[in-house]
């Protein structure tokens, strides 16, 4: 196991290095740079600015500079926002994380419960209804659900605010602040949960169906164990086990932010910031953020491989 781990960690570093090079080249070869968009500048001024920002240097040299700085913990200044990249992360990522963490938690809880019940009652009216509802949630564009909920709950009924994270101009602190944020995040969390629910519920349902057909379940039932005990101690644990491998894959999503949701609900998250930065070709911010997500992805992959082994000891790593 430990040799396996060292090997994997080494691979991770190599992959991250390759990824950083690839990603840097990708961004650098996207048409237009940070200066291009400002068509009011004269050609001389454009050249001057490119000189100042080092955009006129060859791609590989720029990559070298970036990498060197990154090794020294300097991820640069955002060109468009005029702030250190790390400070921007700190400003925005936690807001995205809050949404993602809460909705991921809800998604998993609901998916497990609904998946297990509908598997247990396979082909019942409940199962059918659940499946149709799940597919329905998966088949709608997210902006549609978002606008729909805003219209009903915020504009017509005025139960919840239409967007933002706090009431504009509010100076609430402590419990009052918490309450405000919870009210504001209710709608986006509902939408994100709805969107994620479908595939996960389906996953749990089919796992559970498989498990329920296994011999050991039959044995347990034959032993005369209570149905509830069969279901929750024997079946559920085995149905859940493979799912922990998915945990690793959730990692980058937790920090990546959701663009549509953030935009519709006016949530101050990193997803919006990334999109804007891309439009402006704000290279330091783009590189910083993408590499951050890349690191999380690689770690998440490793995590899920390890968990896989934990969940299914038959698998040799």
């Amino acid at each position, binding site marked *: 196991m430990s040799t396996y781990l060292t090997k994997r960690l080494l*691979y991770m570093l*190599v*992959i*991250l290095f*390759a*990824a950083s090079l*690839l*990603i840097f080249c*990708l*961004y650098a*070869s*996207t*048409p237009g740079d940070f200066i291009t968009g400002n068509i009011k500048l004269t050609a001389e001024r454009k050249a001057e600015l490119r000189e100042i920002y080092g955009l006129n240097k060859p791609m590989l040299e720029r990559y070298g500079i970036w990498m060197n700085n990154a090794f020294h913990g300097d991820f640069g200044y955002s060109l468009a926002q005029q702030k250190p990249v790390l400070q921007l992360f700190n400003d925005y990522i936690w807001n995205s994380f809050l949404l993602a963490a809460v909705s991921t938690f809800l998604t998993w809880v609901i998916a497990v419960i609904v998946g297990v019940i509908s598997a247990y009652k396979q082909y019942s009216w409940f199962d*059918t209804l659940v*499946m*149709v509802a799940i*597919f*329905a949630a*998966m*088949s*709608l*564009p997210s*902006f*549609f659900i978002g*606008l*729909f909920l*805003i*219209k009903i709950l915020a504009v017509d009924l005025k139960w919840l605010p239409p967007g933002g994270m706090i009431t504009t101009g509010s100076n609430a602190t402590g419990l009052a602040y918490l309450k405000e944020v919870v009210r504001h995040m209710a709608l986006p969390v509902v939408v994100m949960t709805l969107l994620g629910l479908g*595939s996960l519920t*389906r996953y749990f349902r*089919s796992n559970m169906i*498989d498990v329920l*057909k296994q011999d050991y379940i039959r044995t347990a039932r034959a032993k005369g164990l209570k149905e509830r005990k069969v279901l929750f101690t024997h079946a559920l644990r085995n149905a859940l086990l493979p799912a922990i*491998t998915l945990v690793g894959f959730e990692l980058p999503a937790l920090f990546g932010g959701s663009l549509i949701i953030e935009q519709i609900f006016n949530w101050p998250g990193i997803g919006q910031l990334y*999109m804007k930065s*891309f439009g402006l070709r704000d290279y330091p911010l*783009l590189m910083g953020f*993408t590499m951050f*997500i*890349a690191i999380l*992805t*690689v770690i998440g*992959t490793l995590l899920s491989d390890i968990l*896989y082994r934990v969940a*299914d000891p*038959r*698998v*040799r790593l």
Partner: protein
Amino acid sequence: MEANSRMTGLHESRVQRQKSSLFRQSLKRLMKNKLAVAGFGVVVCMFVLCFIGPFFSPYTDNKINMTLMNKAPNLQHLLGTDALGRDILTRVMQAGRISLTVGLASMLLSVFIGALLGAIAGYYRGIADQVIMRIADLLMTIPSLPLLFIFGALLSEWKVRADYRMYIVMLMLSIVNWPGLARMVRGQMLSLREREFMQAAVVLGLRDSRKLFHHLLPNVVPLLIVMATLNIGGAILSESVLSFFGLGVMPPTPTWGNMIDAANNMIDFQDHPWLWIPPGLSIFATVIAINIFGDGLRDVLDPKQKR
């Protein structure tokens, strides 16, 4: 599926007869699943409507008519008209042709690539596994947004006609998006390899290809079907994303995605529901139907259920 397998002639070998009965059995079981049949029916209807429907419409030329702007459904225009006075029913049907084709094609391609690479990695392990999975790891770290723009710029540079661009981009996306599925298939393969029946297959000295295609892959098919059906909805939606970035179908040609996108603000959403309901409902119905059908198919094809 092949219709001739239903005819069991005297000259046919035993194996073939066995296959045919297997197929019949599956079909029978599928027919019993009312929901799945209904789903299949809806998908067929959708295809028929989109591919044949426009021939019966008087508005196929998509003529712009400013006097008919944003009109609610009426007798001349059963589903109303859009912001340029074009008939929405006709456009929904024409859009369906492109959306369905693109959805199916890109789904098939990415499932094929993902399954193939995943199976190879999971079965042969060793070098092949390392190479494939490390490439997958690398690809998974790459953001798709700049990739799309670079594709777009390249195609624009190569003067590929705008009408064809979207198909190429779609293909490229399928090619880039295989890692997730490949990982999943590989995982299944790894765990299947260790099962008793595979050990039996090894003891029996079966050939690699036989082990792979007769014993391992059929066990992965249910997973593939789930993934494929999940994917098709995503593909239909991602088509609209491509159009949005100017990499998709050029504007006068409708797709479900770009039609829905036209109502992407509160004002149209509230006041012109006929702009987004027809394409929205089409995507909705199609994706639900495909999913339900896929689910039924999975139940039928799952080898574990044949006990």
